[in-house]
């Protein structure tokens, strides 16, 4: 059954186990505050978050809007520094670069660069010969199935294709760690399912450590080894759930498994409670009857 190592008071929760016990990403009592405007009192975005993600694990971070999911990823990439606690990526402080791939919530493609040039952008910090570079680019574009659009500009692509480019760019340097921020949130349902399958295929091939942010319970269960549930304002870890479903999960209809439904019921109920308990949510204090 799922593990509930710790409650909402947010003391250390450890997520280890799975295929490789070596620690890939470690958050140790991390806190981060933001001031809405310069000089305003900082508001705590995440507070006292501790979690350990094992090497080569796929961990989904699940939580309602505003619970600090993006903030966690930016911290893990070293794009921002924590106010409290520390973060380690394979034992070292996070350093943005080719070792950590980041797929953003919005695609963030360079509009004046072609698909190939955008993918090549991900390789900028690597010492490669021209031929190696071109090779890598072609290989990763092929991996996401965009070979025929290599010379197209982003403006001419569909949302799904743009997200593939962003994925190829993040994968191109062959990073040990892959951070993904709701990468499929703005893609239509059909494309999303296909992309989820492809991501699983790529992950099985590349063996990277993945931190995947989502607010979709189904997506989290379908993809992850572990699910970290966050509560909002301030963002903190509420629960860590082990997903003990067989892999690969995209080759059969995992959603029909009794275990899948059990996990979904539990997580959906938890998410609902978090939203109802959030004073800044429009559903605050309402008492919905569980279905």
């Amino acid at each position: 059954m799922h593990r509930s190592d710790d409650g909402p008071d947010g003391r250390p929760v450890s997520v280890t186990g799975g295929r490789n016990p070596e620690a890939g990403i470690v958050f140790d009592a991390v806190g981060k505050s933001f001031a809405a405007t310069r000089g305003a009192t900082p508001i705590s975005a995440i507070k006292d978050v501790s979690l350990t993600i094992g090497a080569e694990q796929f961990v989904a971070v699940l939580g309602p809007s505003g619970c600090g999911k993006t903030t966690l990823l930016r911290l893990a990439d070293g794009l921002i520094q924590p106010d409290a606690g520390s973060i380690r990526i394979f034992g070292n402080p996070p350093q943005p670069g080719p070792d950590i791939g980041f797929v953003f919530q919005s695609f963030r493609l360079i509009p004046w660069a072609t698909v190939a040039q955008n993918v090549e952008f991900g390789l900028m910090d690597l010492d490669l010969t021209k031929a190696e570079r071109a090779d890598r680019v072609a290989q990763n574009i092929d991996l996401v199935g965009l070979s025929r659009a290599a010379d197209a500009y982003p403006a001419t692509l569909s949302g799904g294709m743009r997200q593939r480019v962003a994925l190829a760019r993040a994968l191109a340097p062959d990073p040990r760690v892959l951070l993904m921020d709701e990468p499929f949130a703005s893609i239509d349902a059909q494309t999303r399912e296909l992309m989820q399958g492809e991501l699983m295929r790529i992950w099985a091939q590349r063996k990277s450590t993945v931190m995947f942010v989502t607010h979709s319970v189904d997506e989290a269960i379908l993809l992850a080894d572990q699910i970290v549930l966050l509560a909002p304002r301030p963002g903190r870890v509420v629960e860590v759930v082990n997903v003990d479903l067989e892999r690969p999960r995209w080759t059969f209809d995992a959603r029909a498994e009794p275990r899948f439904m059990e996990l979904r019921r539990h997580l959906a109920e938890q998410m609902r409670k978090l939203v109802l308990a959030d004073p800044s949510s429009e559903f605050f204090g309402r008492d919905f009857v569980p279905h």
Partner: protein
Amino acid sequence: MILVFRLGFLAFLLLLWALAAQQMGGNVVPSPKATYLAAGRMLGEGRLIRALGDSLTVFLSGYALAIAVGVPMGILMGGFRVLGKTLEVYVYALAATPRVAFIPLIIVMLGLGVEAKMFIVFLGALMPVLINTYAGVLAADDELIEMAQSVGAGRMRVFRRIVLPGAVPFVIVGMRLGATIGLINTVVAELYTSVKGLGGLLAIYGNTFRMAEYFVVVLMLSLIGVVVTESLRYLEQRASRWRIVK
């Protein structure tokens, strides 16, 4: 297709012109034909070409100087926030001051020759180029910058690969505005300093009521305006091929 419409409109304008000439008499508005003949005469004398050469020299050198100074300065002001914050007030103040106000000062400093004219053009074209470049650098996409940082780009590379290319459309708009103002200032300079070039011809023919010749000069100026702005429009399209072409 659009070319056909444009030519059609040109015919309409010519018709209006001919009508106006008929109503008001050739002494006020010369007929298209009289203007055409005057143009032939002026070309034959070599006077028009010489004036055109003078004006273009003044315009192009002043304008080139404005770009050579305005673009790097805008980039520096955008790249170093302290510098930008310090200077922007003065730049905006200068941009809001009618440049004609400086002409007496310029004449005192540089005399009535080519240098003074060039400087008047430079001063007019500089502001739009500078201000737009500055705005373009400041308008850089924060999300793209963060993406570049996550890929491992340092400050310099973020600036070179994200900020500067993103500013190009702004710079070209500034160049277009600068070209228009520069052209106006060319004529203003030729009227206020030593009377030369197309502006000079304008003064001579206007003062002596030789309206056909006067019209030739006015049309010449419009033609230069069209050529300059159209070439910049072409440049703009070249620079933004990546936008969806409908």
